[in-house]
C-alpha cells in the first residue's frame, strides 16, 4: 500500500487506554500545530523488558523526527524528582531500543539505525540544568524540542511501523530463499508480503481503540478481522492483567489460530506467556471436553448445562445452539445475573444466535466491553447481522440496551469497518462475484443480494446507472477497497484464468506441469500452491489422479483435512490438495480449481456458484480455474464477459418479484429430485425422438396433455 500519510502531512491518531487525559489532550493539541506525517499511539505499546512491562504513555513515529516516546510526569521541580525521571527515561529507552533492535531492517551494523528519543512532559518547566540526554519540557516548549530531532528515511519509517505494529511477527514472513529473479511470481509474493507487514491504518485503529462499551468490527472476508481481535485481546490483557477476558468463536479450528496469535502478541508486549486463567479462549458452546461460554454462564448462574444431544433432540440440528441459548437466557433473566467478564471478544458473530449476545451482555460487567466481529459476507447467501439495538435485547422500559454505536466520550470509535481486502486481487473478487451471481450468465442471474446496498459494503461503487430495482447499473470496485500493490505488481489477465480441457486426464496433466513450472521457474514454494477439487463426491479419485500426475513431475502432494486444525493445510515441500470445505478460511498465492465444470451443473445452481465463489476467493494472487466439457465452456464465456467489460459488473437490478422468482427457480435439488428430473428427461427425450420419427403420433396422446404442454413450455420460453 502507498503510505498516503507521508505525502500529505497527516498525523494519524491511534487511541488506546489513556492514563492522563488532560496531558494527552495537550499533547495532541501541540502536535497538530506541527507539520508531521506519521502516527501517534496513545497508551501503547507495552514494551516487554526482562524485568517488568514498561508502559509508554504515547509514542510518535514520523518521517520528520523518527521515534519519539512521551512520558507524562506530574512534577519535575526538584533534583531528586528529575533524577527519578531521568532513570525512568533510561528504562523506557532501553526497552524500546531492545525491541526495535531485534528487527534487522532497523539495524545499521551493530547499532540502531534510527534515534529514539524520550520526552517527559510536565506542567511546569524544570528548574536548572538536566542530566545528559534527558529531555523534560512543557507542552509549550515541545515544538522547538521536536524540531531539533533529525528525520528518517521513508524505508526506515515503514520498518519502524512494521516493528511497532508487530505484524512482522504476526505472520512469520515466508523466507522465500528461492527468489533470485525480480519479477518472478516468488518475487512478487515477497513484495506483497512485505507490504502486508505494514499494517494498514484501519487495522491498527481497530486493534487498539478500546471504547468504554460495546464495539463492532466488520469487514470483507480477508480484511484481517481475526488478527485485529487477537491483537486487541493481547493488548487488553497486557494493560489489565487482572481482568477476566474472554475470546470466543464458533469454529473449533479457530482455537489454535487464536492461541498462536495471542501468545505471539503477548510475548512481544510482555516478554511472557499470557495468563491463560485470565485471558481465556472459549468455544461459544463448549463440548464434553472443553468448557464454553454458554456452559460457563449456565453453571455460574446455577442453571442446567445442556449438551448437543439434548439440543438436537429438543430443537433442530440447525437451531440447536439458538435453542439452548434462548432457554438459558430465560433462566438467567429470571434471577439476578452473575456478572463475571470484564471484556468479551466475539469472532464469527454472524454464526451465533442473538440470545447468545444478550447472555454475554448480562454476564459482562459495566461498561460492557463487548467486541463483536464478523465478515460482511462469508459467502453469497446474503446474511445480514442483527443491528446492535436488537442484538443485546432491551431494558425494562423497552428501550434498547445498546442504542447506537457513537464514539465514546474519549472519541474511541465503537463501530469499525475494515474496508480493505488484503486477501484477494480486485480482479479475483470481481470475477468471483460475477460468476457467483451469474451476472454474465446467458440465461440470467442465478442469485442476488436481498439488500442491494450490500454491494457497497463488499467494496463496489456505482459507475453508471442506479442500484435500484429494475434499473440498469454498472458496478466497479472502489480503488481504495484493494491495496494498491495488487495493481502495481499483477495484471488482470494473469490474476484470473479459465482453462477448458477435453478430458480430465488432460486437465490434471496440465495442472501438474503448471505447478512444476511454478516451483521451478516461477520461484514459488510448494506451500504457496493449493489445488481445490470442486466436486466433493469424486474428490478422492481426482486426488489420486493428481498425485500420480504430480509424481511424474517429481512432486509430492498431500490431502488436506482430517487434522481439524486450520493452519495445517500446508506442508513444506508438498502440494496441498483439498476439497472446497477444507479450503474455507484458507488462502494461497496460487490456486488451481479442478473440475470447476461441476459448478455449472443445473441441479445445484446455488451450491455450484457458491463453490466457485469460495474457490476463486482463496487466491491471494493467481487463480486458475480448470474444467472440462460444455459446463466449463459456459463459465469461461462468463469470465470473458467480465474481462470484456473491464472488470465491471453490468446488469439489470432485479425487482422484488424477480428476486422471488430467482429463489424459486434456482434452488439446489436433493439427490432424489435430481434422479427424478433425470428420469423424466430420459423419458421426454425418447418421447420427442419417437414423435420425430413418427413412431408416436400427436393424435395418440390426450388433447388436454398436448395443450397443457404447449402452454407451459411456451410461456416459459417467453420469460
Amino acid at each position, binding site marked *: 500500500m502507498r503510505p498516503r500519510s507521508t505525502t500529505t502531512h497527516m498525523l494519524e491518531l491511534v487511541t488506546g487506554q489513556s492514563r492522563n487525559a488532560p496531558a494527552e489532550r495537550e499533547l495532541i493539541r501541540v502536535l497538530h500545530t506541527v507539520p508531521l506525517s506519521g502516527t501517534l499511539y496513545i497508551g501503547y505499546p507495552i514494551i516487554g523488558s526482562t524485568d517488568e512491562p514498561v508502559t509508554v504513555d504515547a509514542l510518535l513515529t514520523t518521517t520528520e523526527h523518527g521515534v519519539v516516546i512521551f512520558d507524562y510526569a506530574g512534577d519535575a521541580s526538584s533534583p531528586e524528582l528529575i533524577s527519578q525521571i531521568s532513570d525512568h527515561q533510561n528504562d523506557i529507552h532501553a526497552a524500546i531500543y531492545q525491541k526495535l533492535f531485534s528487527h534487522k531492517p532497523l539495524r545499521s551494523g551493530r547499532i540502531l539505525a534510527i534515534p529514539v528519543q524520550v520526552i517527559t512532559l510536565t506542567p511546569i518547566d524544570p528548574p536548572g540544568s538536566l542530566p545528559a540526554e534527558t529531555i523534560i519540557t512543557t507542552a509549550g516548549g515541545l515544538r522547538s524540542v521536536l524540531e531539533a530531532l533529525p528525520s528518517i528515511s521513508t524505508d526506515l519509517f515503514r520498518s519502524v511501523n512494521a516493528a511497532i505494529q508487530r505484524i512482522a511477527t504476526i505472520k512469520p514472513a515466508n523466507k522465500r530463499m528461492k527468489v533470485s529473479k525480480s519479477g518472478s511470481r516468488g518475487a512478487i509474493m515477497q513484495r506483497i508480503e512485505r507490504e502486508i507487514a505494514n499494517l494498514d491504518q484501519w487495522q491498527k485503529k481497530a486493534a487498539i481503540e478500546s471504547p468504554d462499551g460495546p464495539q463492532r468490527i466488520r469487514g470483507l472476508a480477508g480484511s484481517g478481522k481475526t488478527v485485529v481481535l487477537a491483537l486487541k485481546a493481547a493488548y487488553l490483557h497486557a494493560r489489565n492483567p487482572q481482568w477476566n477476558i474472554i475470546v470466543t468463536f464458533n469454529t*473449533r*479450528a479457530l482455537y489454535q489460530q487464536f492461541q498462536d496469535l495471542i501468545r505471539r502478541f503477548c510475548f512481544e508486549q510482555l516478554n511472557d506467556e499470557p495468563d491463560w486463567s485470565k485471558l481465556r479462549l472459549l468455544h461459544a458452546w463448549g*463440548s*464434553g*471436553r472443553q468448557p464454553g461460554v454458554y456452559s460457563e454462564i449456565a453453571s455460574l448462574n446455577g442453571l442446567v448445562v445442556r449438551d448437543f444431544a439434548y439440543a438436537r433432540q429438543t430443537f433442530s440440528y440447525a437451531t440447536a445452539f439458538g435453542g439452548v441459548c434462548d432457554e438459558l437466557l430465560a433462566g438467567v433473566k429470571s434471577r439476578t445475573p452473575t456478572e463475571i467478564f470484564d471484556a468479551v471478544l466475539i469472532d464469527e458473530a454472524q454464526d451465533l444466535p442473538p440470545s447468545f449476545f444478550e447472555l454475554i451482555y448480562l454476564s459482562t460487567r459495566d461498561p460492557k466491553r463487548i467486541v463483536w466481529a464478523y465478515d460482511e459476507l462469508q459467502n453469497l447467501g446474503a446474511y445480514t447481522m442483527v443491528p446492535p439495538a436488537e442484538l443485546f435485547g432491551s431494558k425494562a422500559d423497552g428501550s434498547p440496551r445498546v442504542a447506537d454505536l457513537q464514539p465514546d466520550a474519549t472519541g474511541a470509535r465503537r463501530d469499525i469497518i475494515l474496508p480493505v481486502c488484503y486477501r484477494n486481487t480486485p480482479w479475483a473478487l470481481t470475477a468471483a462475484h460475477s460468476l457467483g451471481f451469474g451476472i454474465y450468465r446467458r440465461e440470467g442471474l442465478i442469485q442476488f443480494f436481498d439488500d442491494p446496498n450490500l454491494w457497497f459494503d463488499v467494496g463496489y461503487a456505482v459507475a453508471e446507472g442506479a442500484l435500484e430495482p429494475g434499473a440498469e447499473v454498472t458496478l466497479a470496485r472502489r480503488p481504495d477497497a484493494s491495496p494498491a500493490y495488487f495493481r502495481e505488481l499483477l495484471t488482470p489477465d494473469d490474476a484470473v484464468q479459465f482453462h477448458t480441457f477435453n478430458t480430465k486426464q488432460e486437465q490434471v496433466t496440465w495442472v501438474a506441469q503448471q505447478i512444476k513450472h511454478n516451483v521451478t521457474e516461477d520461484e514459488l514454494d510448494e506451500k504457496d500452491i493449493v489445488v481445490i477439487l470442486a466436486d466433493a463426491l469424486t474428490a*478422492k*479419485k481426482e*486426488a*489420486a*489422479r493428481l*498425485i*500420480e500426475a*504430480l*509424481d511424474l513431475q*517429481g*512432486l*509430492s*502432494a*498431500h*490431502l488436506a*483435512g*482430517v*487434522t*481439524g*486444525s486450520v493452519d*495445517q493445510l500446508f*506442508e*513444506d*515441500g*508438498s502440494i496441498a490438495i483439498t*476439497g472446497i*470445505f*477444507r479450503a474455507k478460511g484458507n488462502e494461497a498465492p496460487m490456486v488451481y480449481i479442478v473440475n470447476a465444470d461441476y459448478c455449472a451443473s443445473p441441479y445445484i445452481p446455488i451450491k455450484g456458484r457458491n463453490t466457485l465463489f469460495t474457490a476463486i476467493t482463496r487466491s491471494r494472487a493467481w487463480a486458475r480455474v480448470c474444467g472440462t466439457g460444455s459446463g466449463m465452456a459456459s463459465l469461461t464465456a462468463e469470465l470473458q464477459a467480465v474481462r470484456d467489460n473491464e472488470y465491471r459488473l453490468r446488469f439489470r437490478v432485479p425487482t422484488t418479484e424477480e428476486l422471488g422468482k430467482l429463489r424459486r427457480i434456482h434452488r439446489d435439488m436433493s439427490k432424489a429430485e435430481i434422479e427424478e428430473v433425470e428420469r423424466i428427461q430420459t423419458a421426454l427425450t425418447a418421447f420427442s425422438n419417437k414423435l420425430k420419427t413418427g413412431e408416436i403420433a400427436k393424435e395418440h396422446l390426450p388433447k388436454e396433455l398436448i395443450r397443457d404442454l404447449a402452454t407451459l413450455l411456451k410461456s416459459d420460453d417467453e420469460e
Partner: protein
Amino acid sequence: MTPSDVRSEVSRLNVTLLESNVAINVNGSVLKRNGSNVLVTWPNASLSALSDHVFGSLQEYRHFLRHREYTALLTDGALLQLSYSFDHDDVVGHRLCYYPCPLVLKSGGTSASFIDDFDDQLAGELEAQHAVLYASSRVDPIFGLRLRGPLRFDFDARNYSPHHSASHLHLLQDDSRWPIYGPVSIGHFVRFVFRHFYPYLEVAALREWPLRHGGRTVTASEEYELFIECRQQLR
C-alpha cells in the same frame, strides 16, 4: 534405489490406497537433504517429537494424528509411516510403522475432521470405561478401546551393537528389537500389513506390492535366536 525412487513408490502407494478406498488421507514423501544424507519422509516429520511420547501410547497416536505425522491414514484409523534415509544412493536407515487405531471407530473414517471425531469418541469411551471399572453404573459399555500396539520396522545401519541389531522390529515396547534379516523394502512392509491385518481387503495391488531386495545385515549370533527371515524368490 534412489531417494526419488522411494518418493515415487510412496506416491504410487498413496494413489492405490485412495483409489481402493483404503485411506482417508495421505501425505506424499518429501526429500530432506543434509549434505550427502537424504531423508525421504512425510512432510511434517519432526524426528525429535517422535521420542516425546511413550511408544504405543494413546498420546502418541493422537499426536501423530493431530500433527499429520503419517504417510497414510486408513479408514479404520490406522496410520502408516514410511521413511527411508540415504547416504548418496545407499539406504542407511528406514522407519516403517503400522500404527493401529486404539479405538473401534463408531462412525467410519470419512469425516472431514477425523481428529475431532476421534477425540469425541475417545472421551466418551474413557468415561464409559471409568464407569465400568469404578462404579456399578448402568452404563452400557461399548468396549471400543483396544489394547493394540504399533509395529515398527527400523533399520539403522550406523548404530549397530550387540543389543541393537541393524534391522529390527519394535513390538509392544520401544526397547524390544526383534532382529530382521536385513533392510525391509516398501513391498515387504505393505504386503505384511495388508496380508496380516486386512485379510478381508481384496486389493491385489497391496497384497502383491513389488519387493526389492537389499543385503543381509543379520549377524550369526542373532541367527541363533528367534529372528525374522525372508527368502528371495529366484526367478
